[in-house]
């Protein structure tokens, strides 16, 4: 077997050295009647030639869409060529967790640089090395807030504008606290500030908001921050499109205690949501309660600047049942793609792409507003916005699918009362011709 260096002669030598006659004896501690004999239903092993054919067939089973305006938590972006090029280097891809700092300075420094850029984007003091994804990152943020507020049993306010998948994951993680959850209503497509001010009282412990929200609307973090300041409430935020921080200030600037988000836009294609990494940032004073890995800067015994995993006693492999979380990873290779992408964009590139995203979305909005049957609110948005249709969004999406492309996301998939809402996301990859095609499509539908 080409992945196993030992040939039959090697095996003979090894068996002799350990004093066994056959390899079966290696497994003498498994009762013979339980061992697999003829009952393993497994296909024949494939060579690389056959594997390529297998996947060719799988990929050909249905056509990929020729154009997509789907966003809703995962976004298409231009991934610079150097990102996959560097990410696939052996020394990054096949390295282990940097528990031995002396021979892992590459990974450790990359994480340190990532942590730094996240603090800059979110305007927070401290970032960890990433968590699984945006949804679990939000759940972990709320759990951390609960640990910090363990004396009181106040309400946990969830914005009604949370991405429904994120809310579902939060509710799964907060199973023991479900009776404390109350939903802050929206007024139209944005958080109702008046209703919110009635909820953010001494009866509440935690406030959870998301911006841009499920409708693509940018919430008024400035007003929310001012409200939070008047209370003891712990404010946890979530963001699914971190490019928004190229034009909008980080939640840390408005007083958010914990900032979470999905990092996928930096570094990876949508990949079915499976190339994600969770952003997690907070204040220095909460350091000891932070879940996940942390890399710190220090010196070695020769006085050279060095990096190391630090504050490890928070984590499961030491603190075990008292750990801040059971998490045993950061999504390092995904995070690495993220930091390479961010470094390539740099200050100017991030600003340029964010402006392009905003411009594309505003272009679509202004043209679609000319279509009388369509309604688009005046709330501020970034790269994504919602169109209210006079008919079901599902028919529209199906019509585009029949023509081989994706015109947006039918929000009715989450809640029946949203079934006339189409969520449209733009990308810097879209050309004017493609944007115009979407406008024409909506203008002439159904």
């Amino acid at each position, binding site marked *: 077997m080409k992945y196993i260096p030992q040939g039959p002669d090697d095996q003979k030598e090894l068996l002799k050295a350990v004093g066994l006659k056959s390899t079966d004896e290696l497994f003498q501690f498994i009762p013979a009647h339980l061992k697999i004999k003829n009952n393993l239903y497994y296909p024949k092993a494939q060579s690389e030639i056959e594997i390529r054919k297998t996947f060719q067939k799988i990929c050909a089973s249905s056509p990929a869409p020729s154009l997509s305006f789907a966003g809703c938590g995962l976004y298409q972006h231009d991934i610079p060529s150097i990102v996959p090029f560097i990410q696939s280097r052996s020394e990054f891809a096949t390295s282990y967790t940097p528990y031995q700092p002396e021979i892992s300075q590459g990974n450790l420094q990359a994480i340190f640089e990532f942590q730094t850029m996240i603090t800059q984007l979110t305007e927070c003091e401290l970032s960890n090395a990433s968590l699984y994804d945006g949804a679990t990152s939000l759940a972990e943020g709320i759990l951390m807030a609960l640990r910090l507020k363990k*004396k009181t049993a106040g309400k946990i306010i969830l914005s009604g504008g949370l991405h429904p998948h994120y809310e579902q994951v939060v509710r799964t993680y907060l199973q023991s606290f479900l009776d404390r959850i109350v939903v802050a209503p929206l007024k139209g497509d944005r958080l109702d500030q008046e209703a919110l001010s009635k909820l953010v009282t001494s009866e509440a412990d935690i406030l959870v908001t998301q911006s841009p929200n499920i409708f693509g609307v940018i919430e008024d973090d400035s007003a929310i921050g001012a409200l939070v300041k008047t209370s003891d409430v712990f404010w946890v935020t979530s963001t699914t499109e971190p490019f928004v921080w190229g034009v909008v200030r980080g939640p840390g600037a408005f007083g958010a205690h914990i900032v979470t988000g999905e990092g996928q836009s930096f570094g990876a294609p949508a990949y079915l949501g499976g190339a994600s990494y969770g952003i997690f940032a907070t204040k220095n004073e909460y350091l000891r309660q932070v879940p996940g890995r942390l890399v710190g800067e220090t010196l070695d015994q020769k006085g050279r600047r060095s990096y190391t995993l630090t504050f490890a*006693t928070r984590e499961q492999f030491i603190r075990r049942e008292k750990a801040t979380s059971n998490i045993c990873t950061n999504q390092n290779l995904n995070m690495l793609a993220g930091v390479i992408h961010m470094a390539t964009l740099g200050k100017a590139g991030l600003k340029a792409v964010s402006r392009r995203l905003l411009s594309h979305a505003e272009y679509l909005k202004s043209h679609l507003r000319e279509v009388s049957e369509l309604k688009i609110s005046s709330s501020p948005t970034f790269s994504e916005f919602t169109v209210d249709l006079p008919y079901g969004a599902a028919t529209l999406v199906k019509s585009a699918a029949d023509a081989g492309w994706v015109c947006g996301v039918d929000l009715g998939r989450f809640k029946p009362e949203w079934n006339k809402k189409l969520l449209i996301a733009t990308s810097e990859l879209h050309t004017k011709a493609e944007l115009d095609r979407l406008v024409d499509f909506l203008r002439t539908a159904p």
Partner: protein
Amino acid sequence: MAANKEPGMHVPEHLLYTKNHEWARIEDGTAYVGITDYAQHALGDITYVELPEEGQSFNKEKVFGTVDSLKTVAELYAPLTGEVLEVNAKLPSNAEQVNEDPYGEGWMLKIELSDEKEIEQLLPAIEYVKLIQKQAKK
């Protein structure tokens, strides 16, 4: 018995001890509590101490907090049943005090005792010395 100058073997006579390497100084129905020189030496550089709140109560031998060194976390067990009257506010940010002065500035809790009879179950210095001498030999 003279204070032993070997690292980790300092055992003041006027205190009482537990097999979990805590010490207690009894004062008029209350007790000051901390960890012993043996414990701080075994842990190495202490980086953090997590202590309870005033007003919390603990039964004897229940965990009241934790102490972190670089690579380990150790649990702290209440030597006696009682309510926490005072917590050493200088820890956790000056956790090294536990290494430098475990019986003095490194004190952790002051508790109000619920059952003074429990004092009899604590080890006097001479018994504790025997215990750590045996452990050190292992």
